[in-house]
């Protein structure tokens, strides 16, 4: 168990949006792995960090946690699995 959990976010641009909560000591290493896999994020207004990949948009406050994963049109299951591996999310069976 990594301690990473997620909550469903309703009322989003896409169905299937979740907010992922990481333990404090795992947040920066997870972002490091994300950057290595997908490239650097963009820092926008209010310090909100946004990482765009072909399958999803990842958004977080400047301290990186929680991360909101918003799926894009045509998102791929394999990209979601990779994201879960990178942040250490083991799955909760909910979708």
């Amino acid at each position, binding site marked *: 168990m990594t301690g990473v959990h997620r909550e469903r976010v309703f*009322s*989003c*641009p896409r*169905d299937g949006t979740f907010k992922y909560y990481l333990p404090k000591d795992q947040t920066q290493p997870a972002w490091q792995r994300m950057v290595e896999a997908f490239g650097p994020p963009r820092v*926008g207004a209010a310090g909100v960090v946004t990482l765009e990949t072909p399958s999803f948009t990842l958004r977080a406050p400047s301290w990186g946690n929680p991360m909101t994963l*918003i799926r894009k049109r045509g998102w791929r299951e394999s990209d979601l699995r990779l994201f879960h591996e990178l942040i250490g999310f083991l799955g909760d069976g909910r979708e």
Partner: protein
Amino acid sequence: MAFATIVDHEHARRTVSGQAVVLHCHHYNARLQRAIEGSIAVDGAGIWRSSAERAWVGTLESALAGSASPRERWEAALALYAFLGFGKLGVPGGGLPDREVVATSSHFAEGWSARGTERREPVCTFTEGFLRAAAWVALGRDIVVHESACQQAGAAVCHFALTAGAGRPLRGLARPDTHPGDDGRPSPVAVRAGVDERKIIETVSSLPVTGDERGLVPAFNVFLASMPVDFYNLVTADYLRAMRESGVESLGRRLLIQVAEICGLNTFSGIRSSAEWDALIAPMCNDTEDEMVALVAVSNALGWGSWQVTELVPGESMRLRSANGYEAEGTLQLLGPSPEPSCLMLTGVAAGLMALVYGTGSVRERVGQFSAKEHRCRATGFDACEFSAAEAA
């Protein structure tokens, strides 16, 4: 041509190229369209399209002033459409439009697709109205626009077929020199000392809310769009007039309030769970009452006009006061003094906010748990609009 949004914090107003705009999200816009176009008693699609045409004519005439050539004017019109968050339009092969325009992204298609596949026919009626207005203002051409394929119906891009119109001139709104709402002054009432409403309004107002490379504005977990305020006021006035002529105006009013209630639930649910909320506002909030006041403060940054919570009984009731809401102002401008309160959107949002913060169950299950009423309205002669929301009987 570069565009900029001017924000008047004091009056909670937003303008682009001198035209008032208000921010609403894809949930509200798609649901409002669904309610109006789905009303079988009236020609909802015709009302939606013609309201868009009239609103855009005024907006574009103001925005394109100074653009010399037709090509410059046409390109500026499409750039404004994307800047405001409605999507990306283009002519296949570039240049001026002849028979076809395509949209590679669409605020309304996003709004409808968030609701699944309940409607498979084209949904971009608003864009049809925009294109007709753009061709008239930029090129002096009257065209008929028909969306022949739509992303909502599974197409890769939305296609708009253009044919020559009958040469009927398009006109925007005749505006009075003064805006009734300009006299409205907010009267902040601090009901929660820990929440700095002014700071929230100024901070959220300063966020850049402009179309990205797709001409969309993903922010606060929703897609926002800066809608010319004339559109909402025209479509509401025309819809209620048509419903009145069909003998079902009260049904129309209830429908618009419910759309706004669901907007209040969905939009502010999205806002409350967004990264922007986590970054800016959550650190100010100690309890759900703080969150309610903060949510209303956020809405002041959307250009709806200035309104505040004046009384809050946790879990039971809330009172709000609006100094210059765009609905009352629009009613006075379009129709003159009204016998009935006119702020249907704010009324519904008041109920939706209570349901969001104090309701139970899923977002869908919370609809109807609280109800709201507008007791006083500027459109009926009062100096401010006042609302109350409480648990539904």
